[in-house]
């Protein structure tokens, strides 16, 4: 299981984890003869032994700094070990000619020797990784599908984008904004947003405070993992108080449209597809796209939703999964008898599909 360290700030460029070699228990300084890689090439060149092109090789001054940085990491191990638990340090047996025991004779075969073990599986165990090493993405873990919550998120995104435009901080429009808590959500969506027939948008309330809250502060405590939610009754009450003209707010400015769709993706996980972006000329169009219920993945899901009359017929059975030979035997009542007979003969009761098909192909592709 590969772990990607938690990003403290999405735009952060230099992270201490990039200089950590996960295949050694302690960071080792590299020899000066082999050109060490700068941190920005760490993603492109996965192997340590792979040569770096001469044009990309760091200067001797950079190498010195790099080695110095590694030594400083070694001096302060707690700095890097907050992400993972390192394997126990290596111990070395003394060479056979330096063993003091006169009765010692080197083994000629491996039979009877003690197994020491290796790093196999160390990095795959979850207990060796801290919570801080979990990947935190821009998209929320759970996609919001509730229509009311999506509408609230859209309103929040629109208000925030126009608030930034109103206070003149348009450079923040394309940046990442903090998610905030329930209080922030409530405060933002209660602002008065109106639009006229001509497309003029007016925003009343504490606009400066909203814009201030959108400034990402690197030193601020980490944002909550879950997006804030309001219950449906409160959302309904709030929605009734909104002016109906807010849905006519134009989204023709590409910077505003980008900021709004980005914010909706961050809050709800609803990604507006590129081909649909041209349809979202105002809030109604955008709501139409993001509030569309997800397509059913299978035919049985669709039938369960819409084709109730088919399921209710007494002579129709709809299976959600493939009907196997075992299912047919079970329906006939023959499976138990077969299992009994198999048990009597000490034969495996694995049932249908226990023998894997095409084992050779799996082996060729690197499987076992």
């Amino acid at each position, binding site marked *: 299981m590969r772990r990607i360290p938690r990003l403290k700030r999405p735009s952060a460029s230099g992270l201490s984890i990039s200089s950590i070699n996960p295949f050694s228990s302690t960071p080792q300084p590299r020899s000066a003869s082999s050109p060490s890689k700068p941190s920005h090439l760490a993603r492109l060149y996965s192997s340590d032994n792979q040569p770096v092109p001469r044009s990309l090789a760091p200067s001797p001054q950079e190498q010195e700094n790099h080695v110095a940085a590694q030594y400083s990491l070694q001096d302060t191990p707690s700095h890097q070990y907050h992400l993972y638990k390192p394997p126990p340090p290596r111990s070395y047996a003394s060479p056979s000619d330096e063993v003091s025991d006169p009765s010692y004779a080197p083994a000629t075969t491996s039979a009877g020797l003690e197994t020491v073990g290796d790093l196999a599986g160390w990095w795959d165990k979850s207990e060796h990784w801290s919570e801080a090493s979990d990947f935190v993405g821009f998209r929320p873990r759970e996609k919001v599908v509730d229509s009311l919550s999506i509408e609230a998120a859209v309103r929040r995104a629109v208000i925030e984008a126009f608030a930034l435009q109103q206070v003149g901080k348009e450079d923040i429009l394309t940046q990442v904004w903090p998610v905030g808590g329930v209080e922030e959500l409530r405060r933002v969506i209660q602002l008065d947003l109106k639009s006229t027939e001509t497309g003029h948008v007016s925003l009343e309330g504490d606009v400066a405070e909203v814009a201030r809250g959108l400034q990402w502060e690197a030193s601020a405590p980490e944002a909550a993992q879950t997006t804030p939610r309001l219950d449906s009754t409160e959302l309904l009450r709030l929605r009734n108080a909104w002016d109906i003209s807010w849905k006519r707010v134009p989204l023709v400015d590409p910077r505003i449209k980008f900021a709004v769709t980005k914010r909706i993706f961050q809050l709800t996980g609803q990604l507006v597809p590129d081909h649909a972006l041209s349809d979202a000329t105002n809030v109604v169009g955008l709501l139409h796209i993001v509030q569309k219920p997800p397509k059913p*993945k*299978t*035919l*049985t899901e*669709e*039938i369960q939703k*819409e*084709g109730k*009359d*088919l399921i209710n*017929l*007494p*002579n*129709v*059975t*709809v*299976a*959600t*999964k*493939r*009907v196997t030979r075992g299912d047919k035997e079970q329906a006939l009542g023959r499976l138990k008898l077969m299992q009994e007979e198999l048990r009597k003969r000490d034969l495996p009761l694995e049932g249908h599909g226990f023998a894997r098909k095409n084992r050779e192909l799996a082996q060729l592709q690197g499987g076992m």
Partner: protein
Amino acid sequence: MTIRAIEKVSVGQNGLGAFILQCKKMDIHYCDYSGSSRGMNAFIKSQLSNFAKAHPQIEFAVSPRPRKHPVLIGHYINGRTKSICVKNMDSLQVLKKAQLLRDASGEKNKRVNKPVTSISESVRGVWSPYHGNGMVV
């Protein structure tokens, strides 16, 4: 004297008095992802409910068969089955195939090249070379 067959008490004539549909069960297999099942999926969604409602004596079993072409399999009361692959057909064509399976008797296809078929016994009886007066060649 000619050989006379054992006289039948009755002759089965389905439809005379009572009609028993020969198709007892229909398996409907489809795939969720492949394009060849598009018409079949549309048939299941839109037309199968009416078809099944009209034929309560047939049991319909709808089940997915991933990565396979769509198939209709009819099971008959004589123990035989008849299957039709309905890949790339539209829903109306699939409906026609379902009607074909419903109307089939389940027997093997036989060539019918006589203009008249009858279930009545021949009045001449069955010819035998060992009986009668014989014929001088």
